[in-house]
């Protein structure tokens, strides 16, 4: 019983200390705001995702062409559009 009480007590104290740790570490925080990406960072993220999607689509087309899933004619029809899209996405992501 006493061991149980001891372990239970230790568990409770350890839990309270762990939960309170952020406040014990910084009783007065100079900046307590939960940082979030600002509008520019979010835009950059969207552009990075779009860039990766465009490059991935180009890679897939190349691979599908090499493995015979896309004919030469289909490849020529699609590759120009995808390259333009990838170039635009790269410009946006870098800009």
């Amino acid at each position, binding site marked *: 019983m006493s061991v149980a009480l001891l*372990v239970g007590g230790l568990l409770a104290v350890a839990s309270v200390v*762990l939960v309170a*740790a952020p406040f014990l570490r*910084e009783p007065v925080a100079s900046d*307590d705001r939960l940082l979030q*990406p600002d509008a520019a960072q979010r835009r950059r993220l969207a552009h*990075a995702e779009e860039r990766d999607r465009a490059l991935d689509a180009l890679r897939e087309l190349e691979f599908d062409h090499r493995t015979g899933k896309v004919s030469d004619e*289909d490849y020529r029809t699609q590759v120009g559009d995808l390259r333009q899209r990838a170039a635009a996405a790269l410009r946006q992501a870098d800009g």
Partner: protein
Amino acid sequence: MPDLGRAALVTSFLLLVYASAAGVFAAWHGRRRLAESAQNALIAAFASTTVAVVVLLTALARHDFSYSYVAQHTSRELPLGYTLTAFWGGQEGSLLLWLFVLCGYSVAAVLTARRAGREVIAWVVPVLGLIGSFFAMLLVFVASPFATQAAPADGAGLNPSLQNPYMAIHPPMLYLGYVGLTVPFAFAMGALLARRTDERWIVATRRWTLAAWAFLGVGQLLGAHWAYVEIGWGGYYAWDPVENAALMPWLAATAYLHSVMIQEKRGMLKVWNVLLVVLAFCLSIFGTFLTRSGIIQSIHSFTQSSIGPWFLGFICFITAASLALVFARLPLLRAKTRLESLVSREATFLYNNLLLVALALTILWGVIYPLVSEAVTGQAATVSKPYYNFFLHSFGLPLLLLMGIGPLVAWRRASLRALGRTFLWPVVAALAAGIGLLAAGAGSSRIGVIAYTFSVFVLASIVLEFARGTRARRALGGVGWGGAFTSLVSRNRRRYGGYVVHAAVVLLAIGVAGSSAYQTVRETRLHPGDSMNVAGNRVVFRGFDTKLEGNHRAIRANVDVYRGGDYLGRYRPGKNQYFAEDQVSNEVSIRHDLLTGGDLFMIADQVNADGSVDLKVLQKPLVNLIWLAGLVFVGGSLIALWPDAREERRLAERYEGVTVRA
């Protein structure tokens, strides 16, 4: 010690409630330290739940019958292994396992999935805390594993069908799957609550979702094998409501794993993907509800209990809240791109999704229909095998075919000319197989021939994909065939791991079709010296043996099997009479033929007082391919799960400076 267990659970409950409440406040008002504190509460809840788990395991190991749970599910003669696995043999213990796994997943996911973004994780913590609070509440107030009583001299023992080595692995695997689906759900909800509908939550939870799905798949196959070797009816899947309960979230998660690729590649289907994550999670909770409430008759529903209404309320709340949130965030989830062609890889994924969801929902309807009919008419109608088989054939066979079509079709759009070229060899192989099967007399089962023909088509398309991919990689130069193959797989682990999983599904389909459509069943009463013939095998009954084991009496029929003039061995189907449990179990005997993949499955249905046996023998062709499928499935899942350094670098670059760390 039970006081320590109770105190640990109360501590977990309070910590999880704190994680929910403080987490919501912190995320809503943007308070950093409070958000960290809520996250720490999750970690502390995992520690205190671990203490509760250790207390219960200790009580089980010590046969401490002052714990009601230990007395109800074990006995002194129960072997130690089964005594410990009784941890999840009853309701309270399995709820504790749920909470333990959930807390473990929560801590691991929150600490490792930083890529989701701090503002998203701030919302993920209270979602995980809320779900954990529900299970902790049940364990503290409704179904405590630490309830005590005056210790009886011996316990009631464990259900005999649970006294099987699979008991050690099947339930934990299923729980790792069920509970694992909480992670993508919590991150999806966190992303919606934080109004961040970019792909970070998907990237952060990719491996968690895949792991949960793999665990759920493996858990079901282990359960099927358990049923096959232990329950003693000659089958492995009976469309039991609780078996269905595990299958439904797996189907929904399978649909999600496919459609999320369209979101990643094309930025489409954001609403659909979130809905699939919600569906998979709600179905996993529904599965736990079915297993634990005792509301539906099933061999798995070990008890009638009072937790049913709580679960039902929780499912309703989670479903309504999730759908309301998705609806509120619809403007953020609109896709900027559209499907370019109905003949494209993404279109085949879409068809596959519709079939998977349709199959899951028709199974769901079959499960709940008895409840609905009882509520409406006062009489519980039963939904039996033909209902499920009809929909399995209607949706499952097209799904099988799509597994072969999908890899052969290009992304975005495909022309007829290219399709003709890529489909040629798989179609030729499939037609040759179908004609060959009909010529060999397999036409007795139309479904069987269709399933085999489609299976050959899928296998041919998978082989072709690997071959063409390797050839294309080799053509780039610098590597031989082996290097090209390795490079092909390692550069796109998800795709080629997925193809290996497809091969596993094909093996499963072949095994299921073979063992069900082409099985032979004979049953007859045999006296010592009598014999019967089953699919070319002569089975001779020689008489009974009886032996006293630790906690049961084992009665075995000695059965000699011959094929042609060859003696194949002695097999010993029989029954076990368990003393403490006062139950009798069937103990089957199986002759595996590794060369043909088939089994000769023997059941001593009835042990008669005059020394005769009612012997049932099933010859099940190709059934072992089902278990082989499990190994291939694990291999494919591991390939898909294996970390890809190149992909990690690309993602790190993408999220550099955007993902705010704590």
